[in-house]
């Protein structure tokens, strides 16, 4: 029995659950040293991994000259949005007379000024913007579809007796075994026949099918870990199976769904080979577009860097939003609460 400060007696209180380890072998001196070393190592490793991304970010804010300077400039350059302007706009080179005229104008916007410094005039928005939008539409829709379909299939595999269950599961997995490049030509021919070539629908269908194997397998693993008793209790309590699924299973599967969503999104977002073969203009996504920036009048490193950075951002945002669920999700439930 313990005493509070004002002498009032309080009974035994259940302590808050301890969710860190207090085992001797985890808090002893040598364990702490080992942990210190591990933390340092983790930082070093993270540093090594992040250097390219850091360099990418740096380059995107450099002028064309600074981007290719030798030795490379890390801090001693003036940041400019030139790369972004070049990425997002179409420009034409001005001749000497028009250049003079332009320089006299006072109604120029900041991005027109930047273009002018390189002797160029902005003529419109570049394709990149539309293609990034295509990427968002196609990757987003196909990910949502793959996760929803995968969730329903995985739930059925997990909870019901499906005849030939393991064969089906193997078949679903086997669709992932062929490298995509091998099937691009036949799919290209089929898509042309079906009028799916260079359409959003075409790529959405393809990415959904490709991601389904991943989502079914991943989600089945997560759903298997949720005890059946939860739904059974809900059903006895007066809910239908569908209601039980929505109210009991779904909230507990968030972790798995989040992880699966991120994995599918990364695939659909980064996919290059199919996008290159099956689209030309209307439905072309960002990945096949970025290398084409290379081609226009010398290597525009800062524009490429800016394009890659812009391409990274949506995935980073989604991952960041779902991060709370991811840590448990990507380790396949090995870390429990």
């Amino acid at each position, binding site marked *: 029995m313990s005493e509070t400060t004002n002498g009032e007696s309080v009974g035994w209180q*259940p302590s808050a659950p301890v969710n860190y380890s207090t085992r001797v072998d985890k808090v002893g001196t040598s364990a702490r040293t080992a942990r210190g070393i591990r933390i340092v190592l983790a930082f070093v490793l993270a540093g090594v991994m992040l250097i390219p991304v850091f360099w990418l970010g740096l380059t995107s804010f450099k002028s064309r000259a600074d981007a290719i300077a030798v030795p490379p400039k890390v801090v001693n350059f003036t940041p400019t949005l030139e790369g972004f302007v070049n990425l997002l706009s179409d420009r034409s080179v001005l001749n000497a007379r028009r250049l003079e005229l332009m320089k006299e104008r006072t109604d120029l916007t900041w991005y027109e000024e930047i273009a002018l410094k390189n002797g160029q005039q902005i003529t419109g928005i570049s394709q990149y913007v539309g293609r990034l939008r295509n990427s968002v539409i196609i990757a987003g829709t196909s990910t949502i579809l793959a996760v929803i379909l995968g969730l329903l299939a995985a739930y059925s595999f997990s909870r019901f007796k499906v005849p030939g269950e393991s064969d089906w599961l193997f078949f679903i997995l086997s669709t992932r075994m062929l490298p995509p490049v091998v099937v691009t030509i036949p799919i290209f021919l089929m898509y042309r026949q079906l009028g799916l070539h260079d359409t959003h629908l075409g790529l959405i269908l393809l990415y959904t099918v490709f991601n389904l194997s991943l989502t079914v397998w991943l989600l089945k693993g997560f759903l298997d870990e949720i*005890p059946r008793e939860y739904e059974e*209790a809900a059903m*006895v309590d007066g809910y239908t199976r569908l209601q039980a699924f929505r109210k009991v299973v779904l*909230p507990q599967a968030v972790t798995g769904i989040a992880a699966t969503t991120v994995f599918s999104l990364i695939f659909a977002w980064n996919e290059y080979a199919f996008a290159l073969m099956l689209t030309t203009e209307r439905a072309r996504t960002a990945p096949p577009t970025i290398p084409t920036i290379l081609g226009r009048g010398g290597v525009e490193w800062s524009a490429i860097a800016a394009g890659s950075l812009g391409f990274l951002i949506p995935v980073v945002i989604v991952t960041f939003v779902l991060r709370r669920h991811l840590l448990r999700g990507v380790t396949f439930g090995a870390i429990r609460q």
Partner: protein
Amino acid sequence: MATIELRQVAKKFGDVYAVKPLDLTIADGEFVVLLGPSGCGKTTTLRMISGLEATTSGRILIDGKDVTWKHPSERDIAFVFQLFALYPHMSVRQNIEFTLEAQNVSPAERTQRVGDVAKLLEIEHLLAQRPGGLSGGDRQRVTLARALVRRPAAFLMDEPLGALDADFRHTMRAEIKRLHLAQHATTVYVTHDQIEAMAMSDRIVVMSAAEVQQVGTPHEVYHDPANLFVARFIGSPGMNLAPGKMADGHLLLAGGHRYLIPAQWRGTLSQVAGGEVILGFRPEAATVSDGGSLAAEVYANDLHGAYAVLHLSLDGENPETVVHVRADRFAHYPIGQSVRFDLNPDMVRFFDPNSGRALRTQ
């Protein structure tokens, strides 16, 4: 509240019976315990009553209505699972309310009923918490609260105390029994703990190998086991079973002992073909006394708090002929010593060694 009737209800998984055709009628307000060793089909029976498992054959009636093919949600029964099925993503209050939501109970009444049941089970202070942080006992209380708040036609409980430690089981056992007496709710309770079954039930259904062995009150099951399985399974240690052969009004037991058959049994036993029977008696049916008619050698001696259980070998060496006899806690019985004892003639039972069934006096 309701009656539950099982008519020839059976369940097969593949070609194997998990429950062989079973008949059982449970009266309104009765507390029936399904008791049996692991894998005998208790849970399966309970799940069939709840509708979570479809029957292979037979019919199930709740309150006279055939519910054999009704969805679990339409049967108006509450199921308490062995593993506490509390939803981790909801607070204790939400967990308890969850079932009322399904029945479109108004929010005001919900609060009222949750309050009532929380008070009854003394969990009012836990309502705002998540179940994850609760102790085993508190979780079990919440699970019970979830079932009670519904006021269903019947309660089905599958080893609800299985995961608790011994001390706490004791308390919860009494609480469940008190709740039952207060609410008078039809209850089917599964356990493999016979002490629990004895303590709580109006009737016990003893199951083994997918079959019902006996249905009876705790007294009947204990004192008048229907067959050898029940005799061995109930009681710890189980009933003593000593095979013997009848000869001129006596039973010839291992070690050459002659047991004088009690008068009320002579008629029945004289009709047994071959004269082979198994004598059965509980440890407390024997009284150690120097003038006893039976004798055996001490094989081992278990000291309990209030009494001792002597293991006596009838033939002096073979462990298979050991019978257990209750004796004075403070007397000294060295191993190998010969002990004489008598059997209370009213507490002696006989079994047919071929069918395993109990013989009945005429």
